[in-house]
């Protein structure tokens, strides 16, 4: 059997024409024609404005779009046969390839990593095709620390609505900070940058045939950087606008976040067990990150889904949770909606016990991850209720308190991990 190749022959031919580059900007897409043109134009403007002398390329890894996404990306090329409104010293290639298989961000990232490796890109950024608010400055803020300060991974810091990114604020950020000892606000980024060293290291990981190589790969990249002691930095990007889209699939999101965190803890225990204090990660140009516009959240529905889900999965929880935690969870489910409160400590212990159950594979691991979904709804309801009237400072304080709780409970995690229940 010939060994599997990542890049198509046609794409390799195009990369040969691009040649060695200093900067590669990757844009993973799948039917993103609504926004990708605008995003790529901003990337192009950012490259020309902030890195006019760098050899740069924009690479689109597409999952089989049928809406003209790829053509929009290619139209951003600046060369000697096209006329551009922006003056450029160099040719700026903008090329597109369709990767094999079903649309998956991980596969797109692997294609981008392989291209960056082949072109020996010194710095690589990946931007989301949905980042309609992307400004040319983002390119500088993402790539600048890699180029100027030798950062290996630059993660974004966005201004988010106070009820946006609940899973990140309540689970991914606290666990990354408390367990892995790395205080980054967006461990699961959609706009980020990395060095050639980290890119090559990540490309050579044995994950690409596994789930984390297809979905949630960006979080895995962050964890790989933390575990590998790569230099991490954060850059403030501003508001992250999102397209109006169908409600996100929480089970899928849980697999891509909690699933990957648990998997990483399981695979690399030595990397996190000894971590005592989380290391602060520098943030370039950081500003307040919370916006407070009114937003309607259907708390009643959240409450119902929480109580219903927890009741439904009662037998599953018996095999995952310790008795005290299980009892406390049951107590919480009996609270009326108006008095509902899912405490920080219960949430931290629940997450840790799920991690241990995942480690021990007490039941199917995917079932464990899915079972966390209804409990998270309860935690999310509490966050929304507590912060309904809260201002920016109070929200930050609340998030800080959750992280502190996760840190305080880490010995509990270690104790469980080592055999106690």
């Amino acid at each position, binding site marked *: 059997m010939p060994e599997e190749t990542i890049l198509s022959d046609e794409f390799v*031919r195009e990369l040969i*024409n691009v040649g*060695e580059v200093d900067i590669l900007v990757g844009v993973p897409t799948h039917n993103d024609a609504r926004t990708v043109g605008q995003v790529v134009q901003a990337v192009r403007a950012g490259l020309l404005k902030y890195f006019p002398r760098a*050899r740069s390329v924009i690479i689109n890894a597409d999952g089989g779009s049928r809406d003209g996404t790829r053509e929009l990306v290619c139209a951003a090329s600046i060369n*000697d046969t096209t006329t551009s409104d922006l003056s450029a*010293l160099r*040719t700026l290639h903008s090329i597109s390839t369709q990767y094999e298989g079903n649309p998956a961000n991980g596969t797109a990232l692997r294609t981008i990593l392989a291209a960056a490796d082949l072109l020996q890109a010194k710095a690589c950024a990946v931007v989301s095709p949905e980042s309609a608010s992307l400004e040319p400055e983002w390119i500088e803020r993402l790539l600048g620390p890699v180029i100027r300060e030798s950062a290996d991974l630059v993660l974004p810091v966005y201004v988010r609505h106070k009820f946006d990114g609940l899973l990140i604020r309540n689970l991914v950020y606290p666990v990354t900070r408390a367990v892995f000892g790395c205080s980054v606000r967006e461990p699961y980024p959609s706009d980020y940058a990395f060095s050639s060293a980290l890119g090559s290291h990540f490309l050579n990981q044995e994950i690409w045939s596994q789930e984390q190589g297809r979905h949630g790969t960006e979080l895995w990249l962050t964890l790989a950087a933390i575990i590998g002691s790569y230099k991490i930095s954060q850059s403030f990007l501003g508001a992250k606008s999102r397209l109006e889209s169908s409600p996100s699939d929480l089970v899928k999101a849980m697999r891509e976040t909690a699933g990957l965190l648990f998997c990483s803890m399981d695979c690399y225990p030595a990397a996190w067990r000894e971590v005592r204090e989380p290391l602060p990660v520098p943030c370039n140009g950081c500003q307040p990150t919370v916006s407070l516009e009114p937003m309607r959240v259907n708390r009643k529905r959240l409450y119902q889904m929480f109580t219903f889900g927890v009741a439904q999965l009662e037998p599953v929880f018996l095999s995952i949770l310790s008795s005290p935690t299980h009892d406390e969870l049951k107590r919480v489910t009996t609270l009326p909606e108006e008095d509902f409160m899912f405490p920080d400590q219960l949430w931290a212990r629940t997450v840790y016990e799920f991690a241990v159950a995942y480690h021990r594979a007490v039941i199917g691991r995917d079932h464990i991850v899915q079972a966390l979904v209804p409990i998270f709804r309860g935690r999310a309801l509490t966050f929304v209720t507590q912060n309904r009237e809260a201002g920016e400072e109070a929200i930050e304080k609340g998030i800080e308190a959750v992280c502190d709780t996760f840190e305080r409970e880490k010995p509990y995690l270690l104790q469980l991990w080592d055999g106690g229940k």
Partner: protein
Amino acid sequence: MPISQDGLWYKDAVIYQLHVRSFYDSSGDGNGDFRGLAQKLDYLQDLGINTIWLMPFFPSPLRDDGYDIADYRTVNPIYGTLEDFKNFLDAAHKRNLRVIMEMVLNHTSDQHPWFQESRSSRSNPRRDWYVWSDTDTRYKGTRIIFLDTELSNWAWDPVSKQYYWHRFFSHQPDLNWDNPQLREEMWDVMKFWLNMGVDAFRLDAVPYLVEREGTNCENLPETHEVIKDVRARMDREFPGRMLLAEANQWPADLRAYFANGDEFHMAFHFPLMPRMFMGVKLEDRKPITEILKQTPEIPDSCQWCLFLRNHDELTLEMVTDMERDYMYDEYAKEKGMRLNLGIRRRLAPLLDNDRRRIELMNGMLMSMPGTPIIYYGDEIGMGDNINLGDRNGVRTPMQWDGGWNGGFSTADPEMLYSPLMLNPVYGYQAINVTSHKRFDHSLLAWMKRLIKIRKATPVFGRGSIQFLFPANHRVLAYVRKLGSETILVVNNLSSSAQAVELDLKPFKGNILVEMFGKNVFPRIGDLPYLLTMGPYQFYWFKLRRL
């Protein structure tokens, strides 16, 4: 007498630019002279060039390397006599070498008798031969060219108590081309040299001849009228002679100097030169193809003049601010390398003495549409001395051998008009004609070969150009065509090996014959033609349908 009757001879020319003062000193006084130059004509003939462009050799206080002329009708005594010049001219013609000389129409030295008379009183008959004013506020919209030294285009004359106009140094007052007597006098000057047999004039600083209020005083219609008049007189009385324009302008503005083929025969393509350097440093053909895309068509009888380096700074007037910054950072890291809006360095030091890049740049120079100029000493890779003032660092004595004064002069070294290059890399002991002649693969030997191949076909001088745009932007490829003869040129601007696929479908069936080694490459078929190229490599292929 002119040596050939072909009126378009300048299209096939390979020009060698030199200072008489810098080339060879026959008298032992420390300055090159015409007798010395005549002795070195065999060298130039052997190099393969067929036209010599002489820098100004008129009597002059030499405050601007001879561009400050004090007498238009004779030779500066330090270079010899008028008779010496005539002997040199005849000797050159005997070797089929044509001679282009400088003619500075725009200004004279302030030591020129005309200016001395003009300033002597406001009623002097020659008062109006220069541009005088009671105020220094006229022609406000006119830029200052020598930014490093001049604060205004007007200078106060304490003798006649008026301001005089000067576009260059204040010791170079501009002539007033609105004056009919001045015009006739200047034509008489030109006739003086044309009657002697000079083949062409390089007209210095032509855009600035005439001034008009409310304009930028450059490229004015009245200036074009002056040129048209000179050209008409020359065609009528001296057919086959040539006018070359020095006009540092954008191609679109330069186009007007060709008019309908009734102004200049040739003009320097100033914006191309820095972009060739930029293209090689960026490893990207974009700057080169972009400027050539902006270059307008010119009449059939006209021609661009191309050069890599010359006696002036590598001018960066015709580039954007971003491009200028880039050029400074890459090619003039030391402040002393910069002058005005340019870089005062020679070819070899600019290219880090990298033989491959020197060859590539010369290969492009010889294969692009136009007539190439080689600056003296660049054929052996001479260096520069940025410690000398102004542009004197690129005007040091020619290095003939490793002996006394580099073979340039028998004078005591301290008598030389300029210090010799002495450093271990570019010094005359290391870089000289004799040492280059010892090896078949020296730069000099290679240049001879390049010129020979260029001259073996009229395609490079007279043919059309069509750019190919292979997806690999590091490769600059074009097809030169004249009648049934077709040449494919492929240049790798990159410091690393490159693969390139060329779309040669229109030439399907042709065999490629590499012009240096005469080796045959595969026939062009339906598929893109794949070439692999070494760092900075270039190919010239003759397409043969056999």
